[in-house]
Every structure is written in C-alpha cells, then in structure tokens.
C-alpha cells in the first residue's frame, strides 16, 4: 500500500496506543479494532512475519489478523511466561548451530493481542536473532547410580545425540534424575528405561493402529521402564499377577509419595509408565506439545543436563 502525503506510516515499531487484535486487517486499514484512514502500513503483516521467524506461527503472512495469528502470538507470549531459554540463531543458519541462552522474565501484555510493549519485545528478540526453542533437555543418565536404558531403548536422531542420554521435558528431568533415582537406590533396584519422549506420528508409515495423540510421552513428561530387582525384571505381567518383588512395590510407593503418577494405578493399567502429569486438556499441554514436537522436527539443539 503506497503511503500518501495525507497518511502517517504505521508499523510494528511505532504502534503507539494501538493494540493489534483479532479482526485487524492491513488492506482495510483496520487496526486496533478501528478503521484508521489517516494511517498506512502493514503492521499485521510485519507481526506475522516476526512470529513466523520466532517459530510460533506456521502460516503465511497475509495481513489479516485471524485465528492463526492470534494463536501464534499467544504461543510467543506463553513461551515468554513459561520457558526461560531461547535460541540465538543468525538468519540463514541451520537450527542445529544455534546457541541456547537464558533470558529474563518480561511483561507480554494481554494474550493474543499485540500492544506497543509486546511489539517491542518481539523486536528485541528479532534484533538479537533469537527464536523460540525446545523445552526438552538431554538428560545424561550415565552418572545416575540406579537408572539405565534397556537394549530396546532407541536413541532418537537429534543434534549432538549421545548414547547414555534420554530426552525429557526439563521439568521432568529433575524427577527422573532426583526422586526416582534416589528412591531406586534406597529400594536397591535399577530403573531400566524403555522410552521417554515420543515423536508425534512416528513411524510415519506402517502403523498398525492409530497412536494416542495426547500422551504424556509426547510432551516429555513420562518414562516407561522396568524395575529390575537383582536378576528379576519386574514385568507388566508380574504386576498383573501380583508376583512383583517387594522392593518394586517399595520403589513405587516412594516415587508416588514424591508426587509422580504410576501407570499401575490407571483404569487401564500400565505398570511400566511413570509421569508427572501435565493436564492433557490444558493450554500448557498444547503449548508444550507445540514447542517440543516442532523444535524436535526442526532439529533444534537441546541442553544436556
């Protein structure tokens, strides 16, 4: 849109008192919920382009502030309020070469709306070549005394992947390396991991049955494992028949006392499963799912802890 002498330019960098919101439209000069004939520019399109670059909007910029733009903006605001790390990634660089750094808390404004304050935050990220990244971490289990991986454990393909590490959400990493390992040591058992984080829609072909779409594994908040007591591997079948070892029962009770859920308590029992439960019907689940799955797909680097 050409800037005429009678209009003032408007962009993401000079929103002033205007707060971009759902329904705004560059072509109609509809910004902040009102038609503004004295202004001209493409602030919605600039916002969309910025959100695409930040990694929270997955649709093309078209200058119309619709549901996708609102969702992309909410994702960025949620990210700022809930995750404390971002990825420095110069334009054109592969994500795997990015550098993870901490960032301070900031006021993000009303969710789904872009005020001048929100726009300034977005621009600060853009200027610094920062993008949103994964909430997952590479948990090195080698130093843990009572946790190891089963022969069937599959190391996924991701930057700097190493044997002896598992992918989990950073909030769950502490539970696995702390309470679970400590309690396993106390009970004198080993925790042999079969799986932690799970990719959505994998395998891409050859699936026999549809996968669960809101599992705790998809957000890195779960682990499947067998409790190994001496030479005895406590299997699902043993729990089903009540023939598991006493130490396995002790471990489970202690882990539950630390606030974790055990799949043996579920209505459809799942004895190898433990998680710290992220409500699958919550916004936190949706957001965590988006960043964990998308950043894995984009091969973002992840911190080792």
């Amino acid at each position, binding site marked *: 849109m050409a800037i005429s002498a009678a209009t003032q330019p408007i962009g993401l960098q000079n929103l002033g008192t205007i707060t971009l919101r759902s329904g705004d439209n560059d072509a109609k000069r509809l910004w902040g919920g009102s038609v503004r004939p004295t202004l001209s520019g493409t602030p919605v399109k600039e916002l969309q382009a910025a959100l695409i670059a930040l990694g929270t909007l997955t649709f093309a910029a078209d200058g119309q502030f619709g549901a996708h733009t609102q969702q992309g903006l909410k994702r960025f605001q949620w990210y700022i309020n809930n995750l404390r790390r971002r990825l420095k990634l110069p334009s054109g660089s592969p994500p795997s070469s990015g550098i993870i750094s901490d960032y301070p808390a900031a006021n993000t404004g009303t969710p789904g709306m872009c005020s001048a304050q929100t726009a300034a935050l977005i621009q600060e990220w853009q200027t610094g070549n920062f993008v949103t990244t994964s909430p997952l971490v590479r948990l090195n289990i080698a130093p843990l005394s009572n946790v190891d991986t089963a022969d*069937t454990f599959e190391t996924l393909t991701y930057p700097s992947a190493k044997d002896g590490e598992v992918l989990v959400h950073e909030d769950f990493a502490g539970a696995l390396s702390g309470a679970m390992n400590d309690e396993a040591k106390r009970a004198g058992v080993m925790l042999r991991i079969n799986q932690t984080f799970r990719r959505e829609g994998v395998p891409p072909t050859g699936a*026999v*049955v*549809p996968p*669960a779409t809101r599992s705790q*594994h998809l957000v890195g908040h779960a682990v499947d494992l067998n409790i190994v007591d001496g030479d005895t591997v406590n299997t699902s079948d043993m729990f089903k028949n009540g023939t598991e070892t006493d130490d396995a029962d002790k471990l489970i009770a202690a882990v539950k006392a630390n606030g974790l859920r055990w*799949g043996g308590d579920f209505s459809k029992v*799942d004895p190898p499963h433990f*998680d710290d439960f992220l409500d699958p019907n919550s916004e936190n689940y949706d957001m965590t799912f988006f960043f964990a799955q998308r950043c894995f797909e984009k091969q973002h680097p992840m911190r080792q802890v």
Partner: protein
Amino acid sequence: MRRRTRVAGASWLFVLLLGLILPCPGPAAGPREAIEGALRNGMGVVLVVVGAGHPDPADEAYGDWANYLNNFSSRADPAVRIVKTTAAEYRRIIAAPALKDEFATLFIRDPAHTLQYDGMILEPQIYLLGQNYALRRGDFTPRTGYGLRQTAVQLR
C-alpha cells in the same frame, strides 16, 4: 495389410497373456486368509487382536501399546506377517485359544506352536521374544515372565 493384421494379432495375444499373468483383483483377504497364506508360505504370523471403540487420546496404556506395536511393525522381520483383527472377528474365525481380554497378541510359528499374550503389550522386548519364537530363532523359555504362554491355534 496382411502384416498389420499379424502385428495386431500379436498385440492381442500379449494382452491376453498379461491378463493371465497378473493377479486378478478379488475380494480383500480377511485375517483368516492372511494367516493361512502366511503360514503356507513358511512365514511367522503376529496376530494382533484390537479392542473395539475409539481410544481415549490421553490413555497412556493405549498410547504405549500403540507406540510399541507400530514401532515393531515398522521394523519387523520381513519373514513375519502382522495381521490385525478385532476380538469379534477373532472369535468368528478362531476356535482356540480363547481370548481373555479384548486386546491380545498371538505369535504363530505354526498352528501347534503359538505364544499368546493377553492384554496390551507394554514392553517392546515382548515383540522380539515373540518374533524369535515365530521364526524359530533361539529357544523360548516361559520363565521369562513376560506373560507369553504357549498354546495352539485352531481355526474354525
């Protein structure tokens, strides 16, 4: 003119032969035919019995079962045939063994040599044990405690 006719005749003969060689599309093979066909060809069979109804997308037991089954399926030995059926269909075509659960898996080497797992398989190791058994690889020891029990399959 005569030569052209000869060429046209050869073309028709080619089409006719091709039609005889290529398999004719018929009704899709059901689980029974799939099991019998695989065993006849010396393959092992992994018969997966799936409960009816739509799973809860947040059901962790279902999610773990589906994940390990799909992973196994994507990497299973080409000498095993994975056949999926419902509990109702299973009961219609198989007289024994009886199902104890709406979900089950049978690793069939031949009708007289089968391992049965009742319920959802929640440990990937079980698929490897079962596959090895179905393919006559190594010895199967029921003491492994993974819930596999030896049985025989009797088709109706």
